[in-house]
């Protein structure tokens, strides 16, 4: 199964944009020598890791009669379908048809295999449609590549559409209300004016009258993968090093579900870095989790037609901008009805 360019714009908007990179699951979900079935962009995939660590991602569909390869057997450098034993290499080539040696399927690349990269503990894959199989250029978030920045990944699975998860990040004002009783977002005005500031890679949505107090700004970055960057002050108890930042990404799992990736990062070094890491593991991670659960509870409770019956105001400009951008991309990627 490959992503089809004849999908409707509606389907693409609901299941995730194509022809770009998306996060899939954390790297450690697929141990060396292991396989894992995953859903992403509404399709079934198989993550396959050789014992030497090399990872590949295949459509979870046997080229013979469509049985899931994820029910098959890991043979070290290839997978054998359980149904009739057809063997598929990690690049999608059929290496053997045990029941009929010399069969014409052998040597043909019949299974879609997606380009993958592992970044800061997460697996990213390029989801091209049939007309765009070559991976788009990928620029990684600087906080994840800067050696002076230290980050912990938090991954969670939510029963909420991917768009709601991204929209939530382009809506900084919810911090002052939803997260009012939290360790980091208790402070700051509950009224604000926002503006959009365009950049070469996306846009900032930011308060005009407050910075460095609550969740006061966010940058949407489209660099081959979509991600957001934001910064939130820590209370003094978190020690030296200033605010922490979040790089956020969302995996569109299917129409109703998403995987969320939050790297909490801090620009710290030496003993300050070590003490933050110690406190994070021992006490702070739990508090961050409690904040994230507030988001999950809210987003999972949103009605399915929430974005059809709204009355938006100035604070929602960041969300409106995001939808316009994603809708236009979905339209452009759909050849249905053309």
């Amino acid at each position, binding site marked *: 199964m490959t992503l089809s360019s004849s999908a409707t714009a509606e389907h693409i908007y609901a299941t995730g944009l194509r022809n770009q990179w998306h996060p899939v699951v954390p790297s450690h979900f697929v141990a060396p020598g292991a396989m894992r079935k995953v859903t992403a962009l509404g399709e079934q995939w198989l993550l396959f890791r050789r014992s030497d660590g090399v990872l590949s991602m295949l459509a979870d569909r046997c080229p013979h009669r469509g049985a899931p390869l994820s029910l098959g057997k890991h043979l070290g450098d290839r997978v054998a379908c359980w149904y009739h034993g057809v063997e598929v290499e990690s690049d999608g080539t059929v290496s053997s048809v045990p029941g009929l040696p010399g069969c014409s399927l052998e040597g043909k690349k019949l299974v879609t295999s997606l380009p993958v990269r592992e970044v800061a503990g997460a697996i990213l894959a390029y989801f091209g449609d049939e007309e765009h199989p070559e991976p788009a250029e990928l620029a990684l978030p600087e906080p994840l590549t800067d050696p002076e920045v230290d980050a*912990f990944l938090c991954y969670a699975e939510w029963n909420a559409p991917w768009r709601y998860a991204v929209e939530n990040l382009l809506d900084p004002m919810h911090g002052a209300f939803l997260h009012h009783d939290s360790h980091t977002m208790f402070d700051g005005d509950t009224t604000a004016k926002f503006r959009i500031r365009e950049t070469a890679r996306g846009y900032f949505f930011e308060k005009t009258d407050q910075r460095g107090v609550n969740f006061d700004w966010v940058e949407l970055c489209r660099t081959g993968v979509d991600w957001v960057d934001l910064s939130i002050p820590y209370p003094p108890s978190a020690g030296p090093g200033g605010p922490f930042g979040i790089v956020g990404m969302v995996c569109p799992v299917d129409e109703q579900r998403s995987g969320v990736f939050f790297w909490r990062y801090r620009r710290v070094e030496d003993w300050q870095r070590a003490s933050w*890491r110690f406190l994070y593991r021992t006490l702070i991670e739990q508090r961050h989790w409690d904040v994230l659960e507030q988001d999950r509870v809210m987003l999972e409770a949103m009605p399915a037609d929430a974005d059809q019956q709204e009355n938006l105001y100035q604070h929602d400009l960041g969300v409106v901008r995001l939808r316009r951008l994603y809708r236009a991309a979905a339209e452009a990627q759909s050849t249905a009805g053309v």
Partner: protein
Amino acid sequence: MTDTWPYLDVHQSRTHEPTPYEYKLAATLEEVFTREGHELADVVRGLNARQVHAADGSPWTEESFRAEMNRLGA
């Protein structure tokens, strides 16, 4: 590794459940950061003043505190 949806794991950064010593040290460290400041000398003084000592019972020095943080925060 569980395959069941949803994956909701509070602790993803730990290698082990913190020991009572680690919990105590972390909680005291937060209090020291809040009340005494963020300089290394203040932190060491603050921990010692609260009698929250190293695992072997000896008072902290800047060197021993640094080494312990590097171990626990590696």
